[in-house]
C-alpha cells in the first residue's frame, strides 16, 4: 500500500523528537530511547500531536536503539523497540485521524566508524541493525526508515540488514554538509547510486542543515535519483543560546521553503531537529493540493566508491570521453605479482593501486585469481584494504562466484563487475548477485558457441545479455558490453571486427562499452606501438572505458591526445598541464619531480642526502660495473650506518633518517630485481613479526620501525594495526619467529600489549618481545614483561641485530 502511494502522492513525515523531549526535560547525553519506558505518556503525546498536525508517517523513538549505541541496564533493546512501536500505534488510535498512518521504525547510525577508518566490522554493524529491524517488524512497524547516515558503508550495512531480514519497505536518508558531501566524503551521485542499486524504496536527505541550505543538495539528488526523494531538513542551522541549541526557522518560513522543495521534485517531506508539530502543520497547509512531480528513471551509468562517483558514457557533465580502468592488479603474466599474492604481500598490491591512481586511472580492476590461493578470502581482504588507500571505484574481476559475492558484499559503493558472458550458466549465476548488491556488470560477447567472428554475432550476444538482465530488473544502463579484442597476429580481421562492434553497440544498441585493449597485439613485437594506435581507434568508435595499464606512457599519450583532439578536454587543459613541461623533441615521459642527479654523486651520498630518485638511477648505473652484494656492503650499509649514527647523536632527525631509508629502499629494489634475474639471493638476517596491538589504530611508529628493519635486511612480517594477540601468537608459531615487535599508543591499549606478551610467553616461550610507543617507558615495559623497550626506531634495529647475532 505504502509502496503504491510512494511518489504518486505527497506524503508527510513528522518533525523533530529530540527537541521536544529536551523541552520535557531530557538532559544532554541522556538516552532518549529510555523515555519509551520511563515517560511513555510524553512520547505518545508527541506522536499524537504530529498526527493531528497532518503527518502520514510517524517515526518511532528508536533513533539510537541499537546494541552498539544503546547501553542501559534498566531496559532491554527489545522492550524499547516494542514499546516504541506500540506508542505510535496507540497515538494513531487516540488521534483517530481517519486516514492511513504508517509506523516507521526509526534507525539511526551506530555512532561508531567502520573499518578501515574506525574499529567496527561491517558484519558487526550489519548484525546490530538486523537485530532491531527484526524486532521492529515483529512489533508491527510498517516500514524501516534509516536516517542521518554520514557514512555510505554504514548505510549499506543497514540497508542490507533491512532487505535481507524483513519484507518491509525501506527508506534511507543521509546527512550532507554545505560542500554537498557526507562527513566521510561521499558525493550526492555516489549516495544515490548506492541506495538505488541496493533497491531501497525511497532515498533522500535529512538533518545537518535547514531547508534553504539543502536546496543545492536536493537539486543534485533529483538529477541523479530514479527513486522518490525524501527531504527532512532541520529548522535552520543550530545556534547556541544560553547553553541551549536553538533553531531559528519559524513554521511559516519552513512551510514556504518546503513548498519550494516539493515543487522541485521531493515527494516525501517532513522535518528533523528543531521542527515541531507547528512546522509540520504549516507545511501541510501550504502544500495541500500539490502533486509530486513524476519520478523519472535516469539513464546515467555510474559506479562509485566511498568518496567518488565515476560516470561512463555520456550523461553527467564530467562524463564525456573514455574512462581508464587500471589493469595492473592481476597476476596474469606477472611473476612479481604472483609472488606477492602467494606471500600475502598486500603492501605491494596496494602500491600498485596507488601508482595507477597517480597515473590517471579512474577505476581499478581487481583480480587475485591463482590456482593455489583461497580466492574468495583473498578477494574480500584485498578489496577491504584497497578501500583504505584509494578512493577509486573498483572492478571486481573474477570467475569465482563466491569471491564475487563476498567482494560485492563488503564493497563500499556501487562496484563494477568483470564479468558475465552470454553463456546461460554465467548469466544464471552472476545476475542474481547484481540484482542483490547492485553494480555495473561487464557483458562479454561470447557464449556457448564461442566468440563470434563478426560484429553481427557479437551484437546478438550483447542483446541477449541485456534481455536476460532485464528479467532480473537489471537495466541496460548497468551493463557495459565488452566487444572483445582478438589479437591481429592470428586474426587478421580482429581489430576491424572489434571496432565495428564498438561502433554499432554505441549507435544501434545504445549501450556502454569496454575493452581489454592490449589483447590486440598479443604475439607481436613492440606491442605499445599497436596498442596505443588501436586504443585511439577504439575511443573514436565509442569505447566508454578501456582496460589498460595507466603507467604505460604510450597509452596515456593516446588518451590525452584523443581527448584534446575531440574537444573533450576543455581548452586542452588536461593536455597542457601534463605535457607543457616536456620539451617538444623528447615528448616522452613527463617531468616527474626534480632530478638533482649530478654525475659525480655516489650512491652513499645519495642515500645520506635521502634522494630517492637519484639513488634509483645511480644504482642502475652501478650494477653495470659492480656486483649487487658488493654495492650493498660497500655503499648501502655504510651510508645507512652513518645516518643511523647521526640520528642517535642528535645531528640527523627523523624525517632525514626516513628519507635516507626510502632512498636505500629504492636502491635495494633495483638490486633485488637484478639478483632475482641472476638467481642470486641476499641472505636475510632473520624474521621479525611486528604489529600494533589490539584496540590500537595508531601505527605510524610501527611503520617507521618496519622501514628501518627492512633496510637492515630483516624479513619483516607486518600484521598491521588492531591485531588480536591470538593472531600474533599463531604467526610466531607457524613461521617459527624468534622476535616480535609490538607498538601501542595509549594506556588503554598497553593492556592488550600486556595480554599479547602473556600469551606469547605461554605458547611461544622462546620468542623475544620488543615494545615501543608514545605511552611506554623502560619502567612500563618491565612491568608488562617485555624483553626490550625501544625508545626510537634505531634502537629496535640494534636490538634486532643483537638478537640475531646471538642466534648465529
Amino acid at each position: 500500500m505504502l509502496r503504491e502511494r510512494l511518489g504518486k502522492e505527497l506524503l508527510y513525515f513528522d518533525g523533530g523528537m529530540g527537541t521536544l523531549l529536551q523541552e520535557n526535560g531530557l538532559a544532554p547525553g541522556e538516552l532518549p530511547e529510555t523515555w519509551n519506558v520511563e515517560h511513555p505518556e510524553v512520547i505518545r503525546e508527541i506522536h499524537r500531536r504530529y498526527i493531528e498536525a497532518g503527518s502520514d508517517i510517524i517515526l518511532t523513538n528508536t533513533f539510537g536503539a541499537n546494541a552498539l549505541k544503546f547501553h542501559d541496564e534498566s531496559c532491554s533493546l527489545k522492550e524499547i523497540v516494542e514499546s516504541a512501536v506500540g506508542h505510535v500505534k496507540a497515538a494513531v488510535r487516540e488521534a483517530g485521524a481517519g486516514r492511513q498512518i504508517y509506523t516507521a521504525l526509526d534507525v539511526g547510525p551506530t555512532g561508531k566508524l567502520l573499518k578501515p577508518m574506525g574499529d567496527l566490522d561491517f558484519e558487526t554493524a550489519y548484525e546490530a541493525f538486523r537485530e532491531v529491524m527484526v524486532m521492529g517488524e515483529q512489533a508491527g512497524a510498517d516500514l524501516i526508515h534509516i536516517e542521518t547516515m554520514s557514512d555510505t558503508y554504514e548505510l549499506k550495512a543497514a540497508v542490507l540488514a533491512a532487505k535481507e531480514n524483513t519484507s518491509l519497505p525501506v527508506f534511507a536518508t543521509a546527512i550532507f554538509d554545505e560542500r554537498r558531501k557526507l562527513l566521510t566524503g561521499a558525493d550526492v551521485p555516489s549516495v544515490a547510486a548506492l541506495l538505488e542499486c541496493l533497491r531501497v524504496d525511497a532515498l533522500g536527505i535529512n538533518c545537518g542543515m535547514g531547508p534553504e541550505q539543502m536546496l543545492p543538495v536536493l537539486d543534485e539528488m533529483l538529477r541523479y535519483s530514479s527513486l522518490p526523494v525524501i527531504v527532512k531538513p532541520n529548522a535552520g542551522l543550530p545556534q547556541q543560546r544560553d547553553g541551549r541549541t536553538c533553531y531559528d526557522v519559524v513554521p511559516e518560513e519552513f512551510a514556504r521553503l518546503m513548498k519550494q522543495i516539493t515543487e522541485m521534485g521531493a515527494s516525501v517531506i517532513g522535518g528533523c531537529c528543531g521542527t515541531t508539530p507547528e512546522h509540520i502543520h504549516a507545511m501541510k497547509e501550504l502544500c495541500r493540493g500539490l502533486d509530486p512531480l513524476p519520478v523519472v528513471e535516469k539513464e546515467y551509468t555510474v559506479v562509485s566508491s566511498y568518496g567518488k562517483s565515476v560516470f561512463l558514457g555520456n550523461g553527467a557533465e564530467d562524463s564525456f570521453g573514455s574512462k581508464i580502468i587500471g589493469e595492473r592488479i592481476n597476476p596474469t603474466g606477472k611473476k612479481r605479482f604472483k609472488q606477492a599474492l602467494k606471500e600475502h604481500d598486500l603492501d605491494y598490491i596496494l602500491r600498485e593501486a596507488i601508482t595507477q591512481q597517480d597515473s590517471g586511472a579512474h577505476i581499478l580492476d581487481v583480480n587475485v585469481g591463482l590456482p593455489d590461493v583461497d580466492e574468495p578470502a583473498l578477494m574480500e581482504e584485498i578489496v577491504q584494504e584497497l578501500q583504505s588507500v584509494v578512493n577509486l571505484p573498483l572492478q571486481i574481476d573474477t570467475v569465482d562466484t563466491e569471491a564475487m559475492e563476498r567482494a560485492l558484499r563488503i564493497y563500499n559503493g556501487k562496484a563494477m563487475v568483470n564479468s558475465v558472458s552470454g553463456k546461460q550458466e554465467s548469466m544464471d549465476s552472476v545476475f542474481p548477485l547484481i540484482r542483490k548488491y547492485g553494480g555495473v556488470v561487464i557483458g562479454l560477447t561470447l557464449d556457448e558457441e564461442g566468440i563470434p567472428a563478426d560484429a553481427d554475432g557479437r551484437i546478438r550476444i550483447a542483446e541477449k545479455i541485456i534481455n536476460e538482465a532485464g528479467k532480473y530488473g537489471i537495466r541496460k544502463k548497468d551493463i557495459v558490453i565488452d566487444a572483445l579484442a582478438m589479437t591481429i597476429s592470428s586474426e587478421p580481421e580482429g581489430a576491424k571486427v572489434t571496432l565495428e562492434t564498438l561502433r554499432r553497440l554505441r549507435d544501434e544498441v545504445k549501450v556502454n562499452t569496454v575493452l581489454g585493449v592490449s589483447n590486440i597485439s598479443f604475439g607481436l613485437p613492440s606491442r605499445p606501438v599497436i596498442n596505443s594506435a588501436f586504443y585511439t581507434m577504439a575511443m573514436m568508435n565509442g569505447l566508454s572505458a578501456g582496460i589498460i595499464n595507466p603507467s604505460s606512457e604510450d597509452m596515456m599519450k593516446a588518451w590525452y591526445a584523443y581527448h584534446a583532439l575531440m574537444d573533450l578536454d576543455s581548452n586542452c587543459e588536461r593536455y597542457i598541464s601534463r605535457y607543457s613541461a616536456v620539451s617538444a623533441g623528447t615528448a616522452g615521459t613527463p617531468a616527474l619531480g626534480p632530478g638533482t642527479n649530478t654525475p659525480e654523486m655516489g650512491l652513499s651520498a645519495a642515500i645520506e642526502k635521502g634522494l630517492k630518485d637519484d639513488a634509483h638511477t645511480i644504482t642502475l648505473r652501478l650494477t653495470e660495473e659492480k656486483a649487487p652484494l658488493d654495492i650493498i656492503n660497500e655503499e648501502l650499509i655504510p651510508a645507512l650506518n652513518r645516518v643511523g649514527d647521526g640520528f642517535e647523536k642528535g645531528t640527523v632527525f627523523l624525517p632525514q633518517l626516513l628519507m635516507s631509508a626510502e632512498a636505500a629502499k629504492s636502491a635495494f629494489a633495483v638490486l633485488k630485481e637484478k639478483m632475482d634475474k641472476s638467481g642470486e639471493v641476499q641472505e636475510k638476517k632473520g624474521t621479525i613479526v611486528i604489529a600494533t596491538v589490539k584496540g590500537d589504530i595508531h601505527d605510524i611508529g610501527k611503520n617507521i620501525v618496519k622501514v628501518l628493519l627492512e633496510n637492515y635486511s630483516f624479513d619483516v612480517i607486518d600484521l598491521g594495526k588492531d591485531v588480536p594477540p591470538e593472531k600474533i601468537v599463531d604467526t610466531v608459531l607457524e613461521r617459527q619467529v624468534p622476535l616480535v615487535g609490538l607498538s601501542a599508543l595509549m594506556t588503554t591499549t598497553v593492556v592488550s600489549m600486556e595480554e599479547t606478551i602473556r600469551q606469547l610467553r605461554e605458547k611461544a616461550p622462546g620468542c623475544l618481545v620488543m615494545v615501543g610507543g608514545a605511552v611506554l617507558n623502560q619502567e612500563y615495559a618491565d612491568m608488562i614483561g617485555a624483553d626490550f623497550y625501544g625508545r626510537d626506531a634505531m634502537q629496535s634495529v640494534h636490538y634486532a641485530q643483537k638478537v640475531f647475532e646471538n642466534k648465529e
Partner: protein
Amino acid sequence: MERRIKEAVRYLGYGRNAADERTLTLIEDAFAELERTAAPKSVCRIFDLDQTEDGRIIIGNMEIRSRSLSRNLKGCTKTVLFGATLGPGVDQLIRRMSLTDMAKAVIHQACAAALLEEYCDEEQLKIGAELEEQELYMRPRFSPGYGDFDIQYQEPLMRMLDCAKTIGLTMTDSCMMTPTKSVTALIGASPIKERCPIAGCEACEKKDCEYRR
C-alpha cells in the same frame, strides 16, 4: 617562521634544532596538501559548572573526579565542551603515504597535528569572543587523558556533544578517536580574567618529554 611550521618541526623531534631545507620544503608541501584534504569541523556546547567541596566536577549529567582538571577549572562558573576533527580524508592520506614514502608520512602526520591545534585555537578564539560578551573568560582547553583526567570521560563527553552526528567524530572501544586527527576538550569559563593563562606544554607535568616546548 609561521607558528604552524615551528610546531610541526617540534613534533618531528627537532627539539631546539633548526630543520633542514628539504624537510622545511616538505613541511610546506604537506600543509598545502592537508589544506586540500582536510574537512575541519567543530562543535561546542556551554554548560553550567558545579564543583563540590569534596572535589567532584559536575557538568550536566556528567560527574568527573580529577585533580588536574579541578585545578584547571578553579574559579570557573561555566564550561564549554568542545570537539573538533580534520575529517577522515587526512587519515587516508597518511595511510597512503605510509605505503609509498614514510618520510612524507611522518611529516604529514606532524603537520596534521599542527593544523589541528591551529584550527582548535581559531575555533576557541571565536567561542572566547562570544563568552566575553557575557563577561566570561576562557581557560586553556583540557582534554581527557591530560594529567589524571581519565581518558574514559571521552565517551560521555562525546555523547553530550553528539559528536558522531554533528562532526563525524567517533571513538573506538579503547577510547581512541576516529578520525584520528581529532580533539575533544573541556574549556573552563570564569568571571575573573587571568593574565596569560598557562597552556599546552607549560601546563603539563611530564617535564622529561622530548617534545616539550
